């Protein structure tokens, strides 16, 4: 082995041994206590609570007859979806019928 080529011989991986380390919850708590004392605190990002925002941000401005409005609302409520989902489905059927892309 030379200074210019210290890897002139392959490293002996057999010499690479792991030392025993305590990974128990107690050891973790001890480590956390030491960390806090030295200002090494919990910085893990907090997960946002609650429902994720809907991707349905497109807006249509449709006025329909009152009975149709009630039927759409009832159907959406029964299926547990937004009314926009029904409009998307109706639009897909319309496009298929008209053979639009």
């Amino acid at each position, binding site marked *: 082995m030379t200074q210019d080529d210290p890897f002139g011989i392959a490293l002996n*991986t057999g010499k690479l041994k*792991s030392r025993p380390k*305590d*990974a128990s919850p107690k050891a973790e708590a001890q480590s956390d206590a*030491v960390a806090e004392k030295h200002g*090494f605190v919990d*910085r893990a990002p907090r997960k946002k609570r609650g429902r994720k925002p809907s991707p349905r941000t497109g807006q249509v401005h449709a006025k329909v007859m009152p009975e149709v409005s009630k039927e759409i609302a009832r159907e959406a409520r029964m299926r547990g979806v937004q009314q926009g989902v029904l409009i998307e489905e109706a639009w897909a059927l319309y496009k298929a019928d008209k053979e639009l892309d």
Partner: protein
Amino acid sequence: MPTIVVASPKGGAGKSTTAVLLGTELARGGVDVTMLDCDPNRSLSLWAERADLPDRISVQSDVGESGIVRTIKAFDADGQVVIVDLEGVASRLVSRAISQADLVLTPMRATTLDATIGARALELIAEEEEALDREIPHAVVFTMTKAIQSKQHKGIEASLRGQGIDVIDPPLMERAAFSGIFAFGGDLHSMPPQGNMDSARANARAFAMEVYKRLTGEV
């Protein structure tokens, strides 16, 4: 599986550069290396995505505080090396990783600010050794050093050595190839030439060899 944790609460100290150079040089020497990217900035992952990973290297991304101990344990196998790259902040993730380390490397530039903040990691290690009742080998590696050492560098190094801190010689010098490796991915042998490649390769190899000696108890 010796676990090497690269830790300093100081950002920009050269942690990810140290991790990549060490990992790629050990892999080139025939060692299987698993690199854990625990930095939300994903420096290691970005390097890994730039080009095909060198042989014998795998990268695990987005390892967080809750999963760090479990992830290190998952790759526990003799003859391999795990390298943990941490964010440059004082977080509990740092202390948990240190608790599972066979060797902690603290990179620091040869400036008073880096040394002062880097010393916090050394204090944490010392107290963890006491709390966990086991020795945690650790060493400082100077990064981005110049060919001619400044008075500041000499003073900081003498101070550390005087306190019994292990300082790895050679340091990792400021080299175009060391910063360029994040632009091209791969290792110092696969990337397009950036500056004096022979010197960069020799520097990285000699540094990795010193780390290897510490893992095998030859130092």
